[in-house]
């Protein structure tokens, strides 16, 4: 063996060593205890099956977390399919001499100062959640992975098979839609 530390796997100790950590990691991301338990269990099962692919470069927990992250992305894909068929509306001219400029009726409106200050408001949270639900599936998934799960850009690109510039176009459009929805339903209603 080389001087570099070679990590090993010991499934018999997984539950004692890592289950709390994985459970905590999952529950803060899926918000449902039963579901979090299921995902943790699936992660250990997948880990068992994939043991021969373990090269000893990462620590056991890091390796398990990478499997867990994929499970969470799968979960997000599942819950986000078949919902929100709404199209994303275009805010900028797509061709001609004014290509890339704002379309007049899509220009942002000034927001109400009082509404802007009241950021802790519970109804604001509900409005935000509703607006996110209204995003088309692909946009919602990428936006949530980035904003709630705080995945790295590279991780999302690898998992979803998209390029970084693709990802930014998606997030840009998702946020434009979100901004407009929050404007109409909260900040300038």
């Amino acid at each position, binding site marked *: 063996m080389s001087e570099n530390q070679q990590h090993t796997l010991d*499934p018999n100790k997984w539950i004692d060593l890592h*289950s709390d950590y994985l*459970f905590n990691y999952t529950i803060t991301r899926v918000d449902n205890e039963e579901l979090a*338990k299921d995902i943790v269990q699936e992660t250990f099962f997948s880990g068992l099956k994939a043991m021969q692919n373990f090269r000893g470069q990462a620590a056991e927990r890091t390796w398990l977390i990478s499997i867990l992250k994929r499970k969470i992305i799968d979960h997000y894909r599942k819950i986000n399919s078949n919902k929100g068929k709404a199209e994303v509306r275009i805010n900028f001219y797509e061709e001609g001499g004014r290509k890339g400029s704002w379309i007049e009726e899509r220009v942002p409106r000034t927001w109400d100062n009082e509404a802007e200050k009241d950021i802790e408001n519970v109804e604001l949270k509900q409005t935000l959640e509703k607006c996110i639900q209204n995003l088309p599936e692909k946009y919602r998934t990428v936006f949530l992975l980035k904003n709630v799960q705080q995945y790295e850009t590279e991780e999302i690109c690898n998992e979803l098979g998209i390029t970084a510039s693709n990802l930014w176009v998606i997030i*840009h459009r998702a946020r*434009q839609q979100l901004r407009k929805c929050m*404007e109409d339903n909260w*900040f300038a209603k």
Partner: protein
Amino acid sequence: MSNKLFITCDEATTICTKNQYKEASFWEKIRLNIHLLTCKICGLYSKQNTKLSEVCDKHLLKKDCDYKLSEKDKEVLKKKLAEADK
């Protein structure tokens, strides 16, 4: 994105969004700022985009917690795992 100094509103707002995640490059930020000097609409958009980030951070991010599995759950999980390992 191209290397030109002057960019469209569509490009400027895209960079503005990247910047919300601290992932805009140095040159992108320069181009964005040049654009913002002359474009009031994107200035307003940029301000609101920052507000949106603030609202999202406030209401979407999960706080650190310390959840644990019960001993019973762990026993069940151990049994299942042992069976799967056979």
